[in-house]
């Protein structure tokens, strides 16, 4: 477990590392999006402001599309630009470019659009409470027994809501498209997670008009967290169309306010839980879950989020008789998309709160209740997948011990008797399946490439981007440690779709888990095949063999069989496990929760680079805590929040003292780490608030107004 330093840290600190807005081309235009300010309706007229020379502008609308006006996604239902009906606020109507960015922004601001407005759904509860308002297809996990519930079992029913969450990557969405008329090719430099997704997007909108599309990553991608998974396909499609029409390079960088209003967010959710618990054994005997998420106006990748949410919705508990129903609901808000956790934070928000609710009702400690119901080896997930390790239980035991949980429960109860402010302590557990769901990794058919040159320099080619998570440092480390080669002679190349094989998207906690472990195996294989002890020596004595190119494909484990229609089988080969405890102080005068201390114990398998892994965990836990506590759109669907002033991101003063430990690190494989830290922290805050005040809050975030209301209602 070495701590190799990041290769890009120093240039990022001295400001020389280039992000998309730091690149420019001669004769470059600036592009922007003209988007709808109506939630639902028809466009009657677009009035451009007077006093501008319209001939200086390049404009593209659906009639300029040389290919299809549909963004390629798991469900192809979203147009690049409004064709007839505006379906949501922030829907792209036109792309507009001009040499002067400031003038362009002013022009767009002054452009007025007249609409014929239609009824619209913009409120989360209006969207999710209406039984009829869904897209049709359901995701069901049916693990029911035919037994009727026994009369003495105690039934608990409750509904939990979670809101939109903004990825808030610090670098706004940005792209430069460069059309080359001589080669009839489109080159796209873009801050995006998945270069091959963007390639499909640009190819779809351009059709046969261009003969080649090449997507490349800039040096730096200023954060993504899922927010640069699918929106870039639409975004690059429009910038490319502008470049094609104008014959000039087009740079498009979103203003923060626009970025917040029109790009994808975490899906709001409504999770309705029904459980029946045996009051004697304290075992949950029966569970029914109705998991609903607001997809927005289009389905796009939401079915995939839905599946992952449904698959994790039971949390870490073994319940023999389970039925889970997942559905996508419609609203007139921008399509929701990927965000670290991908449906799991919503699922755990409900179940981890529900567990404390039952425990309180049965008058049992939330830790004891979890312990009784936790997965044991030999138990099954509702998908029938067998539990093969008890690491979740190990995480829970360790975190309870580290946080001195039992002692604090007693101490806080005593302290609270004599104080107006209240102390509380809460537990939550979580887990996350690594890689694509079910047969997804088979379909991806990922491939990596390595070139070793005459100087024994190793170049690694993968499509996975480094958006700050340190993937390119860690991937290189996994290769050079296995092949025993110096670090300074082994580099991951910047992804470029004309040079890099498709090793799949940078999503689903799969980069280190799938591609890293593959590179490690690949290094051992090359070493075995060429039979060397020292690569440098070998290259020196076999100069005629180099440069040499090696390719390797990911071969999924044959035992991973999953029926995507019935959701039966092995949904994920490997799971990461976690448990956490959070200590809060509730301020009685301001109704504010101060986060005091937070302990996390996680099993993510082998930890390749401890400092990078720790940084990932700290960042994810911070986003998770803020999801439960403070991040909120006050007006979903319209205006939402005006930039970072309205959308409150945690600062250095808002966070608890954090303690993180990785266990079972002697594992052979590195499992998923990117998402799990986001999944579980939020419910621990809610449970701590209950511990402090005796009141449950069923909706995130736990802002003072909501706490005030909950406490008033419980008086």
């Amino acid at each position, binding site marked *: 477990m070495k*701590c190799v*330093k*990041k290769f*890009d*840290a*120093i240039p*990022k*600190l*001295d*400001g*020389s*590392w*280039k*992000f998309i*807005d*730091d690149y420019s081309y001669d004769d470059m235009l600036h592009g922007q999006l003209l988007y709808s300010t109506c939630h639902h309706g028809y466009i009657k007229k677009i009035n451009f402001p007077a006093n501008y020379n319209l001939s200086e502008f390049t404009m593209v609308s659906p009639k300029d599309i040389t290919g299809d006006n549909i963004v390629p996604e798991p469900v192809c239902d979203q147009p690049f630009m409004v064709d007839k009906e505006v379906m949501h606020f922030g829907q792209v109507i036109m792309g507009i470019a001009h040499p002067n960015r400031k003038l362009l922004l002013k022009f767009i601001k002054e452009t007025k659009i007249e609409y014929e407005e239609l009824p619209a759904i913009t409120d989360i509860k209006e969207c999710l409470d209406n039984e009829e308002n869904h897209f049709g297809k359901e995701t069901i996990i049916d693990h029911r027994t035919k037994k009727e519930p026994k009369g003495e079992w105690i039934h608990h029913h409750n509904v939990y809501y979670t809101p939109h969450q903004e*990825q*808030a*990557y*610090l*670098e*706004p969405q940005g792209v430069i498209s460069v059309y080359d008329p001589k080669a009839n090719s489109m080159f796209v430099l873009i801050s995006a997670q998945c270069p091959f997704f963007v390639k499909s997007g640009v190819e779809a909108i351009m059709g046969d008009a261009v003969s080649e599309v090449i997507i490349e990553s800039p040096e*730096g*991608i*200023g*954060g*993504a*967290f899922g927010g640069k998974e699918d929106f870039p396909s639409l975004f690059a499609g429009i910038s490319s169309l502008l470049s094609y029409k104008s014959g000039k390079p087009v740079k498009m960088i979103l*203003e*923060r*306010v626009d970025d917040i209003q029109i790009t994808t967010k975490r899906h709001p959710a409504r999770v309705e839980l029904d459980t029946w618990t045996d009051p004697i054994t304290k075992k949950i005997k029966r569970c029914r879950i109705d998991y609903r998420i607001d997809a927005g106006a289009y389905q796009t990748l939401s079915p995939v989020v839905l599946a992952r949410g449904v698959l994790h919705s039971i949390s870490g508990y073994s319940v023999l008789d389970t039925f889970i129903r997942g559905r996508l609901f419609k609203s007139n808000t921008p399509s929701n998309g990927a965000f670290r956790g991908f449906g799991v934070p919503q699922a755990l928000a409900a179940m981890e709160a529900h567990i404390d609710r039952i425990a309180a009702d049965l008058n049992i400690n939330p830790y004891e209740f979890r312990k009784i119901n936790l997965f044991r080896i030999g138990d099954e997930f509702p998908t029938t997948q067998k539990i093969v390790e008890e690491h979740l239980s190990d995480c829970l035991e360790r975190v309870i011990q580290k946080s001195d949980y039992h002692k604090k429960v007693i101490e806080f109860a005593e302290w609270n008797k004599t104080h107006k402010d209240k102390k509380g302590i809460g537990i939550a557990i979580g887990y996350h399946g690594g890689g694509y769901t079910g047969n997804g990794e088979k379909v991806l058919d990922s491939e990596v490439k390595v070139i070793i040159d005459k100087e024994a320099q190793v170049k690694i080619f993968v499509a996975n981007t480094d*958006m*700050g*998570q*340190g993937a390119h440092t860690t991937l290189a480390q996994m290769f050079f440690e296995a092949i025993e080669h110096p670090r300074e002679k082994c580099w991951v190349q910047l992804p470029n779709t004309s040079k890099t094989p498709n090793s799949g998207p940078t999503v689903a906690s799969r980069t280190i888990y799938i591609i890293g472990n593959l590179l490690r195996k690949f290094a051992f294989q090359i070493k075995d095949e060429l039979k060397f002890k020292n690569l440098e020596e070998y290259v020196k004595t076999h100069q005629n063999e180099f440069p040499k190119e090696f390719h390797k494909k990911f071969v999924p484990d044959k035992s991973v069989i999953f029926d995507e229609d019935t959701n039966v089988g092995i949904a994920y080969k490997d799971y990461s496990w976690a448990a956490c405890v959070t200590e809060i102080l509730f301020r009685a005068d301001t109704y504010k929760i101060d986060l005091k201390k937070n302990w996390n114990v996680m099993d993510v398998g082998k930890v390749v*680079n401890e*400092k*990078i892994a*720790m*940084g990932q965990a*700290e*960042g*994810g*836990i*911070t*986003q998770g805590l803020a999801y439960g506590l403070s991040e909120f759109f006050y007006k979903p669907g319209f205006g939402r929040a005006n*930039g*970072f*002033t309205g959308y409150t*991101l945690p*600062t*250095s*003063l808002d*966070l608890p003292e*954090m303690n993180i430990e990785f266990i079972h690190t002697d594992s052979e494989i590195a499992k998923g780490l990117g998402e799990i830290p986001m999944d579980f922290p939020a419910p621990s805050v809610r449970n701590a608030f209950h511990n402090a005040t005796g009141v449950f809050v069923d909706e995130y975030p736990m802002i003072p107004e909501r706490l005030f209301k909950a406490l008033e209602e419980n008086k």
Partner: protein
Amino acid sequence: MKISFTLNKQAVTIDVEPMKRLLDVLREDFNLLGAKEACGEGECGACTVLLNGEPVTSCILNAAHADGSEIETVEGISQTELGKLIIDCFDETNAVQCGFCFPGFFISSYHYIKTDGEKDLNKIKTALSGNICRCTGYEKIFESVMLACERAN
């Protein structure tokens, strides 16, 4: 409007619209790309520079503010002894993630160490509270600045 100021210890004069944002002056007229625009409303600190030795968000200052002042950017500060020491500390702790906010954090850290420099976690947290990082959870940043305080003294 003609404005003159000291930019990274060099005297400069430029003819510029007085309302042009200082951030744009630095990026467009001087090709100093280290300061970044993340929020455009002075909220996140990614565009931080030093104006007469004090950290300011250059996205909400106009060019006219720079007239007669001394401006230091990440490009200049990173070449100083203290700047190099701080960079080494951030590098050692693997604190940097996406890096978009880091030129700002670097300048706020530099300012704190230069004007106070006490190895005190609460003081450091306050000094950095004008800079937002979405990747790290701040822990490794605090660790880096604590280390830099220790070494600078």
